[in-house]
């Protein structure tokens, strides 16, 4: 029984990371109709930002401070990915709005460039990030069931990000602008919203979230230039499954894929599990082509 609970917990843990990655994708795809294949590389940026923060702490600051580095690295990874996202939007993405196929190719190219850049700077082999001491060990629930602190920390981190995103989108002026642009771009512009500014900010925030996801991934394993590509396909599945335009949909999508992934892999094998997950997704989309939560409104006229 303990093994089952552990698998369940792992499933939730995987879901939470997927959610963090997919949140950024969902807003960019939902608002701007851009398929950002470079999103995975923004995860990588966040991961390497964490690695750099660790290096800086090791080299320049007293050893006793080291255990605190991780909190700072969360901010650093968000900032790094945010800035690169902003740069990407200003120089490339904004020319591709409303052209999903072109954006897919272009951002894929950007992703390759970023990967190679990481290889040139940090080298091709994976590097390890030392987790802070206060995240070692785990919470013993029963004799055989220990929940690692790292995974619990990631869960909490994702919960905080989700809450922050929710407050941003539904409670702030900037979030209101974002929702207006997402629903009716032309009309939002006609009422005085600078859609260009909203677009850059939204894209940058989505990128920043990917950065935080990268930071979280350093707790789970070593990081390398291609770390993002492992997650990007699943994250896109989450977006498609969840439906575009609503946070709740993305949450359900992430839970759905994370849980079925873990459980199928537990019941069968890793590769067969994946096949079953994709079969489920295909079947589900046949039934509900717009995903869990589709935007609906009373149609008039």
């Amino acid at each position: 029984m303990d093994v089952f609970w552990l698998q369940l917990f792992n499933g939730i843990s995987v879901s939470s990371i997927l959610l963090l990655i997919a949140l950024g994708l969902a807003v960019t795809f939902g608002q701007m109709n851009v398929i950002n294949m470079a999103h995975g590389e923004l995860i990588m940026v966040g991961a390497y930002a964490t690695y750099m923060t660790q290096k800086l702490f090791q080299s320049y600051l007293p050893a006793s401070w080291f255990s605190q580095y991780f909190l700072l690295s969360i901010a650093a990874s968000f900032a790094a990915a945010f800035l690169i996202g902003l740069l990407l939007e200003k120089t490339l993405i904004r020319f591709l709005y409303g052209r999903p196929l072109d954006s897919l190719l272009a951002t894929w190219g950007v992703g390759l460039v970023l990967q190679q850049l990481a290889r040139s700077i940090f080298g091709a082999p994976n590097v390890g990030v030392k987790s802070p001491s206060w995240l070692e060990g785990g919470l013993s629930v029963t004799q055989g069931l220990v929940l690692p602190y790292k995974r619990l920390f990631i869960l909490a981190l994702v919960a905080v990000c989700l809450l922050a995103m929710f407050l941003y989108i539904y409670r702030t002026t900037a979030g209101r602008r974002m929702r207006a642009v997402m629903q009716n771009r032309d009309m939002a512009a006609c009422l005085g919203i600078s859609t260009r500014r909203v677009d850059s900010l939204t894209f940058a925030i989505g990128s920043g979230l990917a950065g935080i996801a990268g930071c979280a991934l350093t707790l789970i394993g070593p990081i390398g230039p291609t770390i993002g590509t492992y997650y990007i396909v699943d994250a896109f599945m989450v977006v498609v499954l969840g439906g575009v335009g609503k946070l709740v949909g993305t949450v359900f999508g992430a839970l759905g894929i994370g849980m079925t992934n873990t459980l199928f892999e537990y019941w069968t094998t890793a590769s067969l599990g994946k096949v079953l997950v994709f079969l489920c997704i295909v079947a589900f989309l046949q039934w509900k082509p717009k995903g869990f939560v589709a935007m609906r409104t009373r149609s008039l006229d």
Partner: protein
Amino acid sequence: MLTVEKLESGYGESAVLRGVTLQVRPGQVVCLLGRNGTGKSTFVKSVMGVLKARGGTVSYGGRDLTRKAPGERARSGIGYVPQGREIFGQLSVRENILIGLEAARGKRRGDDIPPAAVERFPVLPTMYGRRGGDLSGGQQQQLAFARVLAAEPELLLLDEPCEGIQPSIVDDIRDVIRSIKSDGRTAILLVEQSLEFVRSVADYVYILEKGAIAWQGELEALDDETVRRYLTV
């Protein structure tokens, strides 16, 4: 105030407007008439910037806006109520009006709805919490007016504001347009089908035909012969 010169515009390959020249003076109500498909909505959209002009100029208050984004036009004082209202269905009524405040030039930002925006629509404050998409067509039209009035525009572009809503609200909307006119602070460019209503509010009339101005003049000059020639279907 609004000066449009030789405006050319259209969709894709097809040209709809072939050089339209039009003027709106401060506080004036200008009506744009014409049969279906003559380019009335295209004209309004091009003035607002939703459609890019292919030739000619749009200037407002002496400033050339021809290449500016719609957002900037709105912030310089032009308000737009589009055909079909275009309410944000997923936003609450309150939020819809607050989005209208985006165009208010610096002075009235924030989260307070100016009372002046809704004073003509007493029904709206009672449903601030409801989603815009759940309102009836007439209520949505009132919301579209409140939304655009929030920013206190100096020029209103109204594209068939009474089309497709229940008759009882049509009269309300017409009263609102009359009261905006009698305030005298806001000029209106009105696209309208009902000649009777046009006769009751317009100061000046333009008639479009095949994407060009076929007739223009003071309201008094709009005689039956002109109506028969350009407007009767």
